[in-house]
């Protein structure tokens, strides 16, 4: 297995990451990618000027590595790439990119889905939306927690 996990301090290009990921393929039949983007509006409709993701030294990267390792243990994927922005992110910029490769497509789909559900709830970031009236701290939503619980239920 090959698993790469990276923190990006500046804007990145998801298509360039997909190109890099697929250049290294070794006969896999399927590749899934997910890109999450910063949005210009909060859940309540208010304007968001920037999303700020605070990380903590090696702990953030270690949390991402642990999630990737779990994905490889759980699904028949041969390689994965996780790139996550940290710092100040403008609306329309990518926050996170995940790619997975597998012999058959189901494992790649499930592993990418799983990686995102875990990252959205467990990766060590503190996130705030900055708007014209100040900032607001964000925690995982109920939908995020519900998404995550799908995998716990399946594991038993």
């Amino acid at each position: 297995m090959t698993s790469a996990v990276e923190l990006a301090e500046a804007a990145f290009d998801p298509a360039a990451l997909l190109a890099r990921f697929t250049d290294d393929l070794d006969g896999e039949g399927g590749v899934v990618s997910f890109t999450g983007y910063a949005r210009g509006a909060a859940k309540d409709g208010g304007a968001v000027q920037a999303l700020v993701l605070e990380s903590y030294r090696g702990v953030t990267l270690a949390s991402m590595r642990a999630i990737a390792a779990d994905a490889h243990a759980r699904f028949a994927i041969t390689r994965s790439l996780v790139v996550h922005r940290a710092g100040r992110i403008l609306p329309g910029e990518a926050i996170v990119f995940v790619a997975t490769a597998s012999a058959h497509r189901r494992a790649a789909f499930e592993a990418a889905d799983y990686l995102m559900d875990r990252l959205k709830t467990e990766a060590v970031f503190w996130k705030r939306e900055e708007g014209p009236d100040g900032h607001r701290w964000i925690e995982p939503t109920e939908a995020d927690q519900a998404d995550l619980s799908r995998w716990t239920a399946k594991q038993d």
Partner: protein
Amino acid sequence: MTTLRIELCGRLAEACGREVELAVPIDGLPVHALFAALADAHPLLGEALARGRVRACVNEELVSGSTVVTAGDAVALFPPVSGG
């Protein structure tokens, strides 16, 4: 006594800034006592700690309340993570 610097992550930094200093015994003290001493020294931070779910991170590892921290340790307090 010696001085321990404690990083405050996420919303914990709202009350007292990104870092606070605390006088601690030379031999250090366990995390649960650290929380109590911080609450005494910084009442606004104490409110956040009282809400629970704050974890201590020592030298890049999350630790339990009984772990002893000393002045040489890199100590940070983590509120619940937001996720990515």
